[in-house]
């Protein structure tokens, strides 16, 4: 196991990421108003949301560079919660 904290991102990267996040958010809002994407809107928005989520976690929260233990702890929470609540909503026929 390595402590990869040495390869720390720079402020330049942070600004870049913020720019990407801003663009994705604009795309999301735009997409929800364009009729043409209506059929794929739900998956599209979920994918774009997941991209933003992933970028913040990986870079701003340093999960990409930090200990694998942290990654496991957090991913257990995220990927435990998703199927759990999908099943709950399925039993209600709400998905």
């Amino acid at each position: 196991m390595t402590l990869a904290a040495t390869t720390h991102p720079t402020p330049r990267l942070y600004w870049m990421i913020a720019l990407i996040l801003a663009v994705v958010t604009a795309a999301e809002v735009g997409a929800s108003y364009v009729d043409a994407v209506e059929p794929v809107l739900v998956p599209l928005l979920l994918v774009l949301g997941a991209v933003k989520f992933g970028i913040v976690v990986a870079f701003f929260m340093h999960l990409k560079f930090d200990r694998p233990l942290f990654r496991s702890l957090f991913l257990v929470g995220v990927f435990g919660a998703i199927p759990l609540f999908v099943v709950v909503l399925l039993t209600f026929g709400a998905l």
Partner: protein
Amino acid sequence: MTAVAQSVDHDPKTGLWSWITTVDHKRIGLLYAVTAFAFFLIAGIEALLIRAQLAGPDGTVLSAEAYNQLFTMHGLTMVFLVVMPIASAFINYLLPLMLGARDVAFPRLNAFSYWLFLFAGLMIYSSFLFGGAPDGAWVGYSPLAGQLTETVRMDFWAVGLQLLGVASIASSVNFIATVFTMRAPGMTMLRMPVFVWMALVIAFLLLFSLPAVGIGLFQLFLDRNFGAVFYEAAAGADPLLWQHLFWIFGHPEVYVLVLPAMGIVSEILPVFSRKPLFGYEFVVFSGAAIGFIGFGVWSHHMFTSGMGPVAEAGFAVSTMIIAVPTGVKIFNWIGTTWGGRLRMATPMLFSLGFIAQFVIGGLSGVTHAIVPTDYQQHDTYYVVAHFHYVLFGGAIFGYVAGVYYWFPKWTGRMLDERLGKIHFWLMVLGFNLTFAPMHILGLNGMPRRTYRYPEGLGYEFWNGMATIGAFIIALSFVFFIINLVRARRHGGVAGDDPWDGRTLEWATPSPPPEHNFDEVPLVRSLDDFWHTKYAEDEEGRAVRVPAVTGAATDADTEAGDDHEAIHMPSPSYYPALASLGLVVFGYGMIYLNWGWIAVGVGAIVALWGLFGWSLEPVTKGDDH
């Protein structure tokens, strides 16, 4: 080994204030144990009253109102104020010792968890003084729990459980961080004692399950007090949502109650069989599997609620799957005894009792997974029988075994074997007489949570037996209490390692010094302490290693030991203060009509405690 104890310069501090401000995991463990035992006696008295009421048809000992409060409080107390904290007591005391650590990762957070548990427990019980205790069953099904808003009984339940949940999440975070970051050098994950593994599994279970019920409790509280309509069928809400949120927590909770006991039994069996645990990896991974699969079975508490046959079939299968790792554990325990030299001391007896009774509870659990039969069993005394076989015949037997086993470590004194054996046999008799008949009652159609039953349905005889059994259980605990009290003064002196133990806690003096280990041990294998005492001959039999004076700790001393350098965290009253603030805040929330002052005061006190806590240095003079 005893010699080194004197060389440490920490005064053993005494007095009430030292207990309030303590951050020593061992003292906190003892506080948990004593508090949980006190609540156990209260819950036991509640159970006896319930059994007295049900001894015959149309019982008149209790009113329906009193009965509903007592069975609710019995369940709530046993789950949240007895078994969880007694597990916490063992984990607190033993986790750092077994890992070769000086303390848990966050000693003050640990104290906070304890005080919040105590104050929240007292708060729930104070409801008896304020017009009655919670009376909507510990599961608090909506909309019943939201219905009686004239009384604050169910507000005490909702707020009390919420606070207890905060305490449990705090200790879970603490235990997980401890296991991942505080292990002694060489203590890899697969060298950790099974008990530590089970502690880790339940910490994860609590961590990922409590937030669900926490949200449910918030919703219920908002419904009751702020006009929200989360469970208001008339507004289009679905009351089954509560059952999902509750059981997403409630089912893993069952494993939270029993896995530490399984861990305890997994420590005791090898010591008294004089053999290593059979299939250590399988026991560990089956425990982890139980925890993991435990998140996929919650809806088997809802087979009669009308989820639809597909969901029922799915949860039936997942419930059956969880029986597999449970079976693996049992087979490995039997494998551990096989070929050993079994010393029938009290801890061993209770562990063997655990196995036998847990098998019954496990098998009756499988019958619940056969969904159509569960349509008949659900919400009857059959279920009561089932979960008492798991949680009393199982968990409580395991924890009592643990008390007999580690009492010498905690106090330096041995418990009396003769009294212990009387306790055991009376408890086995009383337990089975109480709960075996409940299988029959349930199958014969007696629903649970009923304060009386009429003549003519054939329930008299077995209810009478169950009541007799309950009083025999109570009698058995009289012997336990006598034993505990006697041993504090007159018990035989234990020495460091009275049972010829295998794990690191036996390498310390009894009771261990504040800093646990003079030298942090270096761990080279599973059961490392045992291997400093025994080797294996060519036949594979254990042979005593010619006594190297001292054992693990001395042999593995690192250079430059300087006891002056051991910094233990300083005592702090902020954790107790912060938890007190939270409970005052809780009272304010319950009595909203006049309690805004309490809300404010509580919030300020809690914040004061938290800020003081986060700004004070961990160790005095350690302001770097």
